[in-house]
């Protein structure tokens, strides 16, 4: 599904990603872990085209997408959520998701159909499956942090992706909310057959949902494999797991 090879990216001389490699098989949940500043978000930004790679390759469904514009990558079936809340702050909850659905149907340049009447069913369905139905007419800035995080994912799903990237979907969430997200991820993966790539610092969650883990450390992939292998990997323990206890 997704293949990253020898990716490199530096900012003003600082090598944020020095050698990242990743293979995401179709239908699996893959987690990228690593300490703060390892380059996880940067890697995500490179994959989704928000940043341009210095060198290396990213292939999605067999086709090269390195440094392609984000909207084109989205059209090919990849969607993402963001680590920090990144929603359309002045729109209602409904409109937030609807905007994404409209873009999916490529009607974003349509001038003459009232937006109010478009894709109501489809949007409501998504809102419903995310338990956001009751808030649909609220301004999204009035949602709680947890609900905003959920909305963040709902927007991504509006584009009906085949591959979903989640950047720390439970960061800053309470344990109940975290559980809600875990269930959601499992649901999306098992029932909807979505391929999911995520980052998380919550190891419990990672080992719970991930079928495969990649460890990033100082911009390098230091390990990649099944969860139990990663757990026992010496270098990973030194670089990351060891610290979090």
């Amino acid at each position, binding site marked *: 599904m997704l293949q990253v090879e020898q990716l490199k990216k530096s900012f003003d001389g600082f090598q944020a990603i020095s050698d990242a490699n990743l293979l995401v098989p179709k239908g699996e949940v893959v987690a990228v872990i690593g300490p703060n500043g390892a380059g996880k978000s940067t890697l995500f930004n490179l994959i*989704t085209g*928000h940043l341009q790679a210095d060198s290396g390759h990213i292939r999605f469904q067999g086709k090269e997408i390195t440094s392609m*514009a*984000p*909207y084109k990558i*989205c*059209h090919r079936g990849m*969607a*993402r959520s*963001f680590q920090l809340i*990144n*929603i*359309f*702050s*002045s*729109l209602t909850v409904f*409109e937030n998701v*609807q*905007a*994404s659905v*409209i*873009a*999916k149907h*490529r*009607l*974003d*340049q*349509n*001038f*003459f*159909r*009232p*937006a*109010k009447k*478009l894709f109501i069913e489809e949007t409501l369905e998504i809102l419903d499956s995310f338990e956001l139905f009751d808030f649909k007419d609220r*301004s999204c800035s009035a949602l709680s942090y947890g609900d905003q995080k959920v909305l963040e994912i709902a*927007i*991504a799903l*509006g*584009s009906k992706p085949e591959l979903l990237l989640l950047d720390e979907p439970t960061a800053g969430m309470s344990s109940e909310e975290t559980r809600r997200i875990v269930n959601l991820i499992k649901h999306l993966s098992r029932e909807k057959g979505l391929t999911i790539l995520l980052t998380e610092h919550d190891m419990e969650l990672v080992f719970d949902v991930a079928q495969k883990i990649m460890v990033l450390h100082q911009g390098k992939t230091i390990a990649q494999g099944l969860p139990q292998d990663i757990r026992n990997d010496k270098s990973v323990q030194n670089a990351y797991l060891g610290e979090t206890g």
Partner: protein
Amino acid sequence: MSTNNLKLIENPKGKFNTYLGLGIAAVGIIVLLLAPGFLTQYYVYLLATVFTTALLATSLNLVLGYGGLLHLHHGVFFGVGAYTVAIVTTKTSWPFAVAVLLAPLVAALIALVIGWFCVRLRGLYFGMLTLALGQLVWAIVYRWNALTNGDNGIHAIPVPEFLTSINSVYYATLLILVISLIILYIITESPFGLMLLATRDNPVRSESVGVNVKRHRLTAFVIAGFFAGIAGVLFVLVERSVAPSLLFWSESAEVLIMCLMGGLTVFMGPMLGAGILVLLSMVVGLYTEYWLLVLGLLLLLLVLFLPQGILGYLMEIYNKSQDKRGGN
């Protein structure tokens, strides 16, 4: 602290009861239809000027308020539209209707060219490039004596017989204004309009749900240019003359002020601002030499006490009262 994406207002989309809105609009139109009956000629003329400016301001707001782009030189497209009519009618033998149809198209074309460069820039950089390129257009119009008559402008632009009386001009501008506003309103309510708000709120996110943000902004820019071109046509109908100062940056600054004065958050806001500013500059100018001082002081008070604009402020009050009534 990101100033790259202009975040213009806290709650940029006023909710408004559609029926109430329609009702107010209908009453407004009826009053305006009857107005020439009991106004002196001059005020009829002044209202026609207000209509022209109102369309210009509303078209700017598509980019400024809805698109969140700091467009500092919208007057260029207005001027280009007006000049197109002036040049076609005085330098060619084409019928007037052709001039009128051509004007918004030429304005949109210029907007396409300028916009093509500008949409790649953000925030104030965007604003300054609109300014620099717009001034370039101004300088060309100012200098190209053979075509534009230079600083003198073009006067006595011939218009069809039925558009010579001030009352007929009034009704013509009103009609075109209303049609344009309806189209603009439909656009703001369309998927395009919704996505425009989305790109303003969060361009990065818009891009990742599959919107080509640059193209979207460019489209908005061109549409705004198109309607500014129509406003240019109205200007010619009302004034029957054009001058390069239409394309000078200070003119654009005034339009910007109108938008802010009325309120960017509300579709009708810029129109209100246009009305207030046009009337103010005329009326205060009659009584004091220092009308700019008066305007400056008013603006100062507005900024300090009503930063969301007049209509924006009224909407806020309205929304609050609605929220209360709606209960929890």
